[in-house]
């Protein structure tokens, strides 16, 4: 086997990952290992990572094409969170507004704020306090984001 053959060796055929832009809601595929990039439609920068919160955090805004996961005993306090794939709350989430694909509020989780998403799951035992909800009224992934 020559050196050139080594370079020609095929890469493992991993499936592309479908994502939705959180600015323009365009859907496109990315490489599975991609962590950030630009939207091919609106050319804005995007984060593809899943954001996992493991401890109490105060933040301004968070946005990702992946998931936002707030683990048990963790809390996230912020103004706005946008996660195209969804938001999963095991701990505590205080946000003025969250936008996501599927919003899952697990048992023993606490959530306060407004929420917009494709679907909502509130498990028995979870506490949701009084925000404004829009569930299922828009297409997958958030849209009408301010540019």
């Amino acid at each position, binding site marked *: 086997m020559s050196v050139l053959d080594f370079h020609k060796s095929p890469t493992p055929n991993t499936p592309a990952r479908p994502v939705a832009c959180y600015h323009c809601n365009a859907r496109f595929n990315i490489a599975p290992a991609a962590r950030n990039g630009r939207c091919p439609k609106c050319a804005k920068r995007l984060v593809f990572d899943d954001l996992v919160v493991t401890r109490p955090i105060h933040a301004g805004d968070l946005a990702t094409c992946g998931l936002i996961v707030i683990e048990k005993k963790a809390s996230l306090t912020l103004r706005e969170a946008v996660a195209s794939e969804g938001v999963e709350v095991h701990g505590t989430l205080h946000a003025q507004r969250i936008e996501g694909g*599927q919003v899952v509020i697990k048992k023993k989780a606490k959530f306060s704020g407004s929420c917009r998403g494709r*679907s909502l799951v*509130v498990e*028995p035992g979870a506490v949701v306090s009084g*925000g404004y*909800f*829009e569930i*299922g009224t828009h297409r997958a992934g958030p849209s009408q984001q301010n540019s």
Partner: protein
Amino acid sequence: MALTTSPDSRELVTVIGPDAHFKGDMSFQGKARVMGILEGKITADGEIHIENGARCLATVDAKVITVDGEVDGNLTARDRLHLSAKAVVKGDIAAGSLVVTEGAVFVGHCSVGPDAVSSKRADLGTTRASLTTPAVETKPAIQPFRTPTPRKTGTDWVNESASTLNTAAAAKTNDWIPQHAGAAKPAANSGWNNGVDPGA
């Protein structure tokens, strides 16, 4: 058939048929199924199932609520609220636990948890109380007689202000505060210049 109760079934279920249009307040003890159009208010101790194709322009209060149809109004479920894939809910929700299947549409405020229903009812209670009580507080036409405070004499305010100053500055060096009209002046060498006249 507008409002029927199926007697042959083991458990009595009140049914509002698909061709029925009902306006008013309804109250159930057991189960109820809404398949037609309902306007008003529903209160139930048991379970209410709003079927696919039904339309509720109503406030619903029950132990368990299952929505397959369309609801335009507030939902209060003491135990569990289930929105299935074809449900469309526009209104506020308060429930002990909530299940929203993917495909359901919900627009409104949401409170879920063991205390959510009780707090919602407390809010409603305060609202009702405020509705029953007059918004403007009425005052009696004749005000009770108020004893006038004695007016201060010409020199009272001097002594009062001096004593106030004395108390406030007690912790600090207060040798510069005149205690009264005939108070002695501070020592000349206690200042920053040790008594030396800068102009001399």
